[in-house]
């Protein structure tokens, strides 16, 4: 009998399974670092985990606080600079990268910059960071979404997916042939991109989620794969690794913050530092 899991765990584990042994991997912060640590521990021991801040071949022992957190590991093989981390990507040395999604359109183009008028935004999101360059030049890109949205039209075009669809990306001559987003992983399912039209397609659905549940987030008629499968549930080893390595990631951000804050208050009260 398998262990029960949280949706956050399911998402992280689905991401981890995209990392193959020997891959050169660019990890973003949050979910991908936990996924990278999991992959390296369980099925891809020779994966080379990297961060754009210039850390090459690091093995996190705790979840990094951010993209430049070398204190989360005991050493790493090579310290390079940010410029070289990106030109190395441009040269084709990065096998896979992971990006979070703010808005995504039908062809995997992304907005992580702003909502509303760019110059006087309703919401100012973080921006590109490394995203636009990584999805442009990594051989494969895996997208993850928690809290983002599917939209007919991006309010700001931050990072290129398949542009207008079809072979437009390859035809542009601006990107390596065959590159682009490979999958989008959410808490409801795993999406792929149609090999010809490049439109997003629901390929796998998580346990107890219905197609209708997925469709209701998508403002167009979502394509469903003819071979739609149910996402393979996590193994005990995968679940145990995540809980041990990153209990806060297992709990999800909201719950971890709530309990963490309560814990802090308790500690300060005990020391007479809060009345």
């Amino acid at each position, binding site marked *: 009998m398998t262990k029960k899991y949280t949706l956050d765990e399911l998402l992280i584990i689905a991401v981890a399974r995209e990392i193959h042994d020997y891959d050169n991997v660019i990890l973003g912060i949050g979910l991908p670092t936990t996924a990278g640590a999991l992959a390296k521990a369980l099925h891809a021991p020779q994966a080379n985990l990297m*961060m*754009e*801040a*210039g*850390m090459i071949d690091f093995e996190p022992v705790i979840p990094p*606080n*951010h*993209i*430049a*957190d*070398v*204190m989360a590991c*005991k*050493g790493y093989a090579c*310290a*390079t*600079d*940010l*410029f070289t981390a*990106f030109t190395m990507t*441009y040269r084709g040395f990065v096998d896979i990268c992971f990006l979070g999604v703010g808005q995504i359109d039908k062809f995997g183009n992304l907005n992580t*910059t702003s909502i509303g008028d*760019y*110059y*006087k*935004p309703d*919401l*100012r*999101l*973080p*921006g*590109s*960071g*490394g*995203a*636009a*360059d990584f999805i*442009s*030049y990594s051989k494969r890109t895996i997208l993850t979404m928690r*809290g983002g949205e599917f939209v007919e039209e991006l309010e*700001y*075009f*931050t*990072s*290129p997916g398949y*542009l207008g669809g079809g072979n437009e990306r390859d035809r*542009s001559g*601006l*990107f390596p042939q065959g590159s682009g987003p490979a999958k989008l992983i959410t808490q409801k399912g795993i999406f792929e991109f149609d090999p010809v039209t490049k439109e997003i397609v629901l390929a796998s659905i998580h346990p107890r989620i219905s197609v209708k549940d997925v469709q209701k987030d998508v403002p167009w008629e979502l394509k469903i794969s003819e071979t739609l499968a149910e996402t393979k549930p996590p193994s005990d080893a995968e679940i145990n690794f995540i809980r041990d390595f990153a209990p806060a990631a297992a709990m999800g951000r909201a719950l971890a913050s709530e309990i*963490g*804050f309560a814990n*802090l208050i308790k500690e*300060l009260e005990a*020391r007479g*530092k809060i009345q």
Partner: protein
Amino acid sequence: MSKPIEKVMSAPDAVKRFVNDGDHLIIGNYTVGTCMELVFEIIRQGKKGFTLYSQSGILDVELLVAAGAVERLVATYVLRSGGRNGGSAVERALQDGSLQIEDYTNYNYNARLMAGMHGFSFMQVFEGIMVTDLFKKRSFMGEDKYRVIKCPYTGKDVVTVPAANPDVCIVHVQRADKFGNAQYWGAIGSVPAAALASKRIIITCEEIVDTEIIRSSPHHTIIPAFRADAVIEVPWGAHPTEVVGHYNQDKLMWGLFIMAAAGGKRLQAWMDEWVFNCQDRQAYIDHYVERFGSGRLQKLVAKPLYSAPANYGSAFHSTWDANGKDRGTGLTMEEIENLLEERGLLHD
């Protein structure tokens, strides 16, 4: 060179002397080990009108924007507190029209500094950017934000960004000597480029060390003394961010800040308490200890984990061997001088 050779001074003096209203100001650090005390001091002195450059804006950018010190921001990533329902000082300033922002990718931003650092007028970036709104939507940089030229070898389009040479860089490092040789290790990011591209450099460090320490480990030096303008020893100078080998990120203070950042009044209250009511970093740390206890700080202190040293050894460090003979000729000084005389090589 007209700079004084020793660069040690106080943070207020350094900011007074080297940061001017209207400067192009760059935060040298990238997420980790941010130069918090220099940011605080700039705000305390009421400096303003900056064009601010930041690779990855966190507390530093939020505070300077909240203080009304920034007119223009060159950024790749800004902080957002509390998801969709939250906010940030940057968002509020964009909304009320007091701030303009120019968005780049991490790489594009860094390429501008690399050009500046090397004295070029431009640097190549990757052509994929042309399909994005980073390329298409431009703010105060207008046409110059990106330009397109032809590669003289392949004939292909090459996208360029213009060099950035900020007036002043503020940066925090692990150690420096009194001459301004600054050593930094960990995530290199764009830290050396930010400093070296700039016209003036203000360095805070966890410790000022003997110059022999620096000279024994030259591969960790990111700023050579002749480029530095000021060096200030500021222990805990990056708190609540972390400094590799010194202390971890303080999630308590970080959390308090993040909660404050979502709303303008709360952020003002945070700044009153931690920036304006603390005259310097020591006062800030004292206040922290008073509020939360010294135990919380102590918990952050790093346990040592040292790098394997590099051996710079040589077989000898003197021309003369233990018997007072020149290693090349096997002669003593007296024998050499006699030989020069004999051969008629000496003049007066």
